[in-house]
């Protein structure tokens, strides 16, 4: 009985090894130099360098960077009311990443066939399919999804949070290695960001690797945010006390007589 159980267990494990897809191919990339980006008071965005090795010559590499924490957000659509531009509708946008970037060593249209596009679920088209739009105020119209999605992309690209950059990764043909710089804009928020790398040749995925990088506020930047969000009354009192003390101090230093 005991022997049959062990044999069955071995059989199940071996079967699973065949049916569960393995981590594809050889190492596609490694993260350099750290897995954390810190947002201190001097943070103005940060660039993280990556390097990797491709499994075969002639392989195209695609890197996708995506935020893990993606809360719904409210956006407004502006319209002209009499002469003025103001918000006329409000929407809740969900199931879209806060940050989304794609880099590749070739043209995506050449590399990704329809099957691969579906399998990898990447690109702006995939984002648009996943997006859920809920009208909160105003009257619905047929073009809402297109207008909101296009405006949303424009807004994100302007702040450096979204981007698709084809032919941005250069491959060293001598040793099949590549290196590229990923810039996190100052508008990035705290949280984990998943970086997925695919090595693709002739419509087949030869390798896939995934890494996570964290963005964290540190020092004064962390303290101010924490206090403002979680102890807002104390933060407000501190702001007022600082203003009065600094104001008096400046008055004594410059012996200013008045004026505000």
């Amino acid at each position: 009985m005991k022997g049959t159980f062990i044999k069955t267990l071995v059989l199940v494990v071996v079967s699973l090894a065949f049916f569960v897809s393995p981590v594809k191919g050889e190492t596609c990339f490694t993260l350099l130099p750290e897995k954390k980006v810190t947002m201190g008071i001097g943070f103005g965005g940060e660039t993280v360098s990556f390097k990797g090795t491709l499994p075969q010559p002639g392989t195209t590499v695609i890197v996708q960077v995506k935020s893990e924490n993606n809360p719904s957000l409210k956006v407004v659509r502006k319209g002209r009311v009499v002469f003025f531009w103001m918000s006329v509708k409000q929407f809740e946008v969900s199931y879209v990443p806060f940050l989304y970037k794609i880099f590749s060593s070739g043209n995506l249209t050449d590399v990704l066939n329809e099957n691969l596009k579906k399998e990898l679920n990447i690109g702006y088209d995939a984002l648009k399919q996943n997006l859920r739009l809920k009208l909160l105020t105003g009257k619905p119209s047929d073009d809402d999804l297109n207008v909101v999605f296009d405006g949303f992309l424009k807004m994100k690209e302007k702040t450096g949070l979204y981007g698709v950059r084809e032919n941005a990764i250069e491959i060293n043909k001598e040793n099949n290695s590549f290196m590229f710089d990923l810039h996190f804009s100052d508008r990035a928020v705290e949280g984990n960001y998943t970086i997925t790398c695919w090595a693709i040749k002739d419509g087949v995925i030869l390798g896939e690797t995934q890494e996570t990088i964290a963005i964290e506020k540190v020092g004064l930047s962390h303290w101010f945010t924490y206090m403002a969000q979680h102890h807002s009354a104390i933060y407000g009192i501190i702001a007022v006390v600082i203003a009065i003390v600094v104001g008096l101090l400046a008055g004594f230093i410059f012996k200013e007589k008045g004026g505000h």
Partner: protein
Amino acid sequence: MDIFLPIAGMSFNFLVIVGIGGLVGFLSGLFGVGGGFLLTPLLMMIGVPPSVAAASDSNQICAAATSGAFSHWKLGNVDLKMGLVILIGGIVGGTVGVQVVKYLREMGNFDFVIRAVYVLILGGVGSAMFVESLNTLRKSKTASVQGGEIGPNKLSLFFARLPFKMHFKRSGLETSAIFPFSAGFLVGFLAALMGVGGGFIMVPTMIYIIGMPTIVAVGTDLFQIVLTTANVTLQQAITNHTVDLVLVVLLFTGSVIGAQFGVRASRFLRGEQIRILLSIIVLLVMVKMLFDLLVTPDNVIGLAKAAGGH
């Protein structure tokens, strides 16, 4: 060198922020005005979310008005009773204003409302100042302008007849508390909405409508500004989470330095020349705000609530 503004959630070269503070401080020293009405629009122009700009500006004004208020207090230029009546109005107005800001942010129309209110107020104040200083400039060519205190006028006599009469010893007045309270309410409301101290409304109101002596009006105005903006700062921090202390400290540093140069520069200009220059600056800011409201935006989609708040 970049500096990260943790509440605004964006970074700027710190010289840009100190420079804006310095510019407004310079104009403040040159013209003898608060400059809050210029600071909020300038911050919005460089991309700071309007709600963060207005709330942080209130805190900065609190710092900037403190030393002046303290000096006037020591000199006995503050009518404490009048100041308290205005302050009660200011606290009520500021609290209502902060709730209105919260509601407008939820609705996604705060950006529009702040620009529209700026257009109205800057347009009104700028035009009136421009016309007045132009007239003074013309008159000064023919006759010398009479100085001195403004005596009781029809308006101040009318308000004095309203109920809730109080005696204000320092101002030498017996008038209704209704108008000072209402003026305080309006200024507190505007402080929350626009991040202004309201001196450009309160001082003329106290002199021309309530009938207070000029020096007491200035001292009492500074006193109420410190406490009204302190209340607005606290309320904004609690309700909207939009006070960025890093931004405030940088702006204040710039404004203190800029004000010193402004005061020196003011010695080279006559009063009416200074006022006409200020009115042109005010009108230019107004035109820029109006332009933003009328011209088709680059992107018709925007965030309902930019920065701050949960």
